[in-house]
């Protein structure tokens, strides 16, 4: 029984990381593309654009980090495995 829990935990971690990476990757791609577009149009406001881009990317990336933390918790600090 304990063995089953371990197998399912590893599966759950893999699923969490894989699906958790898809959304933020698409979102970050769109954000960077939009920032590049804005930079090409208005190179003089590069400072503001890149700062806002960094902050926005951090916000998007948080979702991926949540999934990673969940996966690591499941793998290394699983409450159901004694």
């Amino acid at each position: 029984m304990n063995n089953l829990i371990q197998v399912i935990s590893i599966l759950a971690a893999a699923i969490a990381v894989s699906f958790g990476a898809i959304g933020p990757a698409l979102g970050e791609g769109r954000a960077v593309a939009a920032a590049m577009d804005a930079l090409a149009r208005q190179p003089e406001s590069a400072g503001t654009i890149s700062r806002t881009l960094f902050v926005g990317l951090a916000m998007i990336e948080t979702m991926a980090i949540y999934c990673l933390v969940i996966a690591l918790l499941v793998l290394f600090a699983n409450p159901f495995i004694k």
Partner: protein
Amino acid sequence: MGEITPDERVYWTWQFVRINATIVYTWATMAFLVLGSWLITRKLSTGPELSRWQNFLEVIVDYTRKQIQEISQQKPDRYLAFIGTLFVFIAVSNALAIVPGYVPPTASLSTTAALAICVLVAVPVFGITRVGLGAYLRNYIRPNPVMLPFNIVGELSRTLALAVRLFGNVMSGVFVVGIVLSLAGLLVPIPLMALDLLTGAVQAYIFTVLAMVFIGATLADASPQSPNQQQGTS
């Protein structure tokens, strides 16, 4: 493997006092920063001849001031101490991760949660002292009173996100290097460690910029002040 946070590595226990790796390396980082700053600022010069390290510190301070000025449209002096300390501490503890045996204290959720709570407390402190209690509280019912619960939840969840983001990035970096090191030995983890340095610097920047954005958002009412004048020396 198996230890997910440096909190679990306990060096010394006395009744309920436990000295773990996080505490030791936090104090080591602070001692490093204080000693380094003291050594550099011992003999400052105002003339054209600068020592190399004084120039280095001046670049950091000047750049931090400029960023604060740009983000908040306020005079940077009030926020420089808090924001600068956050940046320097996080950046140095992330960068020291390449020293063998050093565990970055930011790889522990306790440290990052403490830093995020500092930001949570600093936002109302700076806001109230700058614009007054009434104007600060009015931020919560903006754009209209229906948004009150969302604003409160938002304030808490962004604090959680601030802590978990820094922790997740640094901890996963340490973890990946450890895993690769256990699979393949010499020289193979070096590119990953270089990536780790980059991530550490970017995360330090993001943490401080977000802290300043949160503080600056409550100051929107305050009258924009004129850009501060460059004073004599720097």
